[in-house]
């Protein structure tokens, strides 16, 4: 995959070395990032260019590495819970859900149905929030500055629901091992229903701005094509995989929480290009709204916490549990040695794996497409670097 580049240093030697005559401009090495407006944080992409054509890329990551997996080995199961919010910080609720469910599986307990419904509602809201943020920044990368503000305005409503539910807007720490720590606040259902009613026309509005816009279509159609087999080989998941025509969603394939009780569809694309990924994510927002409105109607009464011991000490064993995070398959591989602290927590980050596909997708494209493709992969560097 990275056969264009032996190592980063050799790039610079080639570039600044005194060999070659002046204006011998066969190839240009362009250092995109880590400070660049559209690398979504601190991603550094080294581009090998021929004019504006991309001959190869290499991603340098790790600028945001905080050693989450190491921290996990030194915290109790409960204590580690807030940390997972800080990986994919735009979809903190999904991260929390994955971790809590993994530990619950290890403990062999199940969250009560009411907790599961709350979890589903919040996670689907989070999916919408994440996709809205993605849409805003992706459009910004392609040069449309306005959708960003519309999506952020609408995402704000979700964050307000979070704030009322659990007291935090971004890194929510909304779920606990065994259920939810908070009962819903008064008017939660109303708020959620109001939100669904509020955001449905707004999504149409995003589409009005972009879907048929000829510039948007030209910029995204046929850009960063990833075919189905390629996508599977490269291990991409989530909307990127679905846009490639693979109808696979963990919510359907291996339902967790209470997803099997809802009626929804998995939108898929045909060509696996940037435009399809855009359409898939827009459709996913609508499907999420469908799930939310079903869930909020059926939300049962009952406890919100399973009976969980005060000190969580799972038996010796290991578990892999994954959920469909907004960005793809988010997996937790937890090894327990029977003590209060996990022996090893491995996070299978969707952004990290999806980012690998960048090189394949931008070869032969132009610099402007690199930006579009980075945007369409929907990476969050907090999760890539952990």
């Amino acid at each position, binding site marked *: 995959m990275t056969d264009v580049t032996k190592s980063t240093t050799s790039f610079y030697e080639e570039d600044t070395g005194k060999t070659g005559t002046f204006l011998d401009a066969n190839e240009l090495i362009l250092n995109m990032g880590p400070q660049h407006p559209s690398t979504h944080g601190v991603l550094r992409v080294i581009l090998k260019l021929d004019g504006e054509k991309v001959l190869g890329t290499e991603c340098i990551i790790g600028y945001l590495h905080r050693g989450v997996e190491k921290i996990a080995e*030194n915290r109790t199961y409960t204590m580690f819970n807030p940390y997972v919010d800080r990986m994919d910080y735009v979809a903190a609720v999904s991260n929390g859900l994955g971790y809590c469910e993994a530990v619950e599986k290890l403990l062999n307990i199940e969250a009560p149905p009411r907790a599961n419904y709350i979890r589903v509602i919040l996670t689907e809201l989070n999916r919408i929030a994440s996709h809205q943020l993605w849409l805003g920044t992706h459009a910004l990368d392609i040069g449309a500055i306005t959708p960003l503000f519309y999506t952020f305005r609408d995402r704000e409503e979700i964050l307000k629901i979070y704030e009322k539910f659990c007291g935090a807007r971004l890194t929510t720490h909304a779920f606990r091992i065994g259920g939810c720590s908070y009962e819903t606040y008064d008017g939660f259902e109303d708020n959620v229903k109001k939100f669904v009613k509020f955001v449905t026309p707004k999504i149409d509005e995003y589409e009005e701005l972009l879907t048929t816009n000829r510039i948007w279509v030209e910029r995204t159609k046929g850009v960063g094509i990833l075919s189905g087999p390629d996508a599977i080989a490269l291990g991409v998941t989530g909307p990127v995989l679905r846009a490639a025509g693979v109808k696979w969603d963990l919510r359907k394939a291996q339902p967790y929480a209470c997803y099997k009780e809802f009626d929804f569809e998995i939108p898929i694309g045909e060509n696996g290009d940037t435009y399809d990924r855009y359409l898939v994510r827009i459709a996913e927002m609508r499907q999420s709204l469908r799930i939310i409105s079903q869930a909020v109607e059926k939300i049962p009464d009952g406890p919100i916490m399973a009976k969980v011991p005060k000190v969580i000490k799972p038996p010796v064993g290991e578990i892999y549990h994954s959920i469909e995070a907004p960005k793809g398959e988010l997996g937790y591989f937890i090894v327990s040695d029977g003590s209060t602290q996990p022996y090893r927590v491995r996070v299978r980050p969707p952004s990290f794996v999806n980012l690998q596909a960048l090189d394949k997708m931008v070869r032969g494209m132009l610099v402007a497409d690199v930006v579009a493709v980075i945007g369409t992969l929907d990476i969050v560097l907090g999760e890539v670097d952990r």
Partner: protein
Amino acid sequence: MPDDAKGNDQPVSPAPSAKPAAEKPAAPSAPGAPAAAKPPMPAKPAGPVPEPWDAEMVRALKQRYGSGIKEASVYLGQKYVVVDSSIVLDILRGMRDDHQFDYCVDVTAVHYPKREQPFDLIWILYSFHKNERIRVKTLLADGQPAPSVFELWPTTDWLERECFDMFGIKFEGHPDLKRILLPDEWKGHPLRKEYGIIQQDNEWVNINLGIESGQ
């Protein structure tokens, strides 16, 4: 800062196998959980027990590789096989080509410093056709290279690099094995158990950041 040391310097927990029947957790409590199976379970203190996994695929593998397949079990509904490191590449290839496990979800490792072969290397595979997950596990000695499966699944490129970065496991056949999350010149592999949680490569920090220490 001063209070940091307290919680962080906890002794490295011993490997599960070496663990003396640790006292049972307060109670697994969920009514259906097998809380009763407590007293003298050989190695497992409590909870569900891995059951032997018997399937056509396992039988085929066992027939073909014999003792190379060390264990094939189901734990909490999740299947895994433990195989010998010499045949793991063969097995993985077979998994992909013959048993339709066409998707490599993750490659990761676990470090058990007290064991003779201190590393568990784990491949998590998924089959779209069977909608089934399986974990293939192998044990590695320190410094023993593992086979790279980059040829089978290009997705393992970065995952193997991360394993190398974090554990120092070398993958033979990987096209460009170098650190991925940490700087190239960094010393030490942070997810090994002997690497302390606040430990850093002070020399690197010194040279590259111009400060005494990152702490």
